[in-house]
């Protein structure tokens, strides 16, 4: 067990544990935000695990999650728009905090990788993850008006 895996364990245990509590209880607006946060926490954890196991190919999992995680949140934002329009989530504090965590993890892992194409790949994953989660958060708080049924 090295520092990378320890950091991933803490992020998973504390972060995803909290996200699970959020997704299981409370009003819908809290649940969708918690679902978005779970993606934003697990993707950096996967990067840390890939670094901890020294398996660069595991980075592909983080890449796929950074692409499809926000898409999953967009699905909820789109198809639950009616319910969310009555009671839109306002969770910019959490969103930016988790985005900051992702940025820190991507920065540290990139620094450990050193300047190479692999580092650019990590930075691309970070940009996709943070951009995706911020846009998904935006979509949840009124990105779809919820009046149409298209």
């Amino acid at each position, binding site marked *: 067990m090295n520092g990378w895996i320890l950091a991933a364990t803490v992020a998973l245990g504390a972060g995803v544990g909290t996200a699970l509590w959020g997704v299981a209880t409370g009003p819908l607006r809290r649940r969708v935000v918690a679902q978005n946060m779970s993606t934003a926490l697990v993707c950096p954890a996967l990067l840390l695990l890939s670094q901890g196991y020294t398996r660069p*190919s*595991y980075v*592909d*999992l983080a*890449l*796929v999650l950074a*692409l*499809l995680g*926000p*898409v999953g949140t*967009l*699905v909820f*934002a*789109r198809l639950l728009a009616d319910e969310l329009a009555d009671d839109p989530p306002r969770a910019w504090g959490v969103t930016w905090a988790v985005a900051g965590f992702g940025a820190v993890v991507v920065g540290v892992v990139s620094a450990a990788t050193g300047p190479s194409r692999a580092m650019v790949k990590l930075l691309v994953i970070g940009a*996709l993850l943070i*951009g*995706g989660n911020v*846009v998904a958060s*935006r*979509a949840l708080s*009124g*990105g*779809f*008006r919820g*009046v*149409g*049924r*298209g």
Partner: protein
Amino acid sequence: MSRRVRLWLVAVGGGALAALLVAACLDLPAFGGARHPYGDRAVREALARHTANTVASVNFDQRAFDTLGEMTILFAAVLGCVVLLRQTRDEHRARPEPEPVALPVRRYALVVLPVALLTGLYVVAHGQLSPGGGFQGGVVAATSLHLLYLGADYRALERIRPVGLYEVGDALAVSAYLVTGIAGLIGGSAFLANTLLPYGTFNTLSSGGTVPLLNAAIGMEVACAVVVLLARFLDQAVEIEEEGK
């Protein structure tokens, strides 16, 4: 059957299943041990055929026939969905109304669509080298197209997604897998045997003999199947309405 008897039946059945599972669990090899008789042999065979990802070698070389079965299951499942979710005589199609979408969300969808599609193709193409393969990449590529539904509306998606073409592509990909198998048979060995092509240089795109070809066939099959499946679900959820409404 009364409620009491039913509960007893469930309790007895569940208890017996739990006992069997525990008994089986106690007989398993210890967790995280050093002895892996199957793994050692699979890795040896994979390295002999220059396939860097042993899982791809197991799926598309050592047990390619099992994968044919899995592919057939998916094909049959999608076929069943297409038949079940078709438009019946007492239903009609309503034009979906455009949905007002916030501009950042729309821009995000338009940028991520090609990136996700490229990532899906990357995962398919590198199935024999890194984690992933036809199934995973195919699902990612198919999901990427539906960003157009999420970022715009269903009509926009329908205009770049002719379902008929994807149905043909699905069938073609299944036949491509079978043809590769039969080519092995004609080439002098067995059905789906990986003896036809040179094994190439280890850890490059052309390594692994027929593994990349079968991977590509599965990738196309899964991508087309998921697109057709989602098309039926979207048709039902967005367009098709019952008469008399």
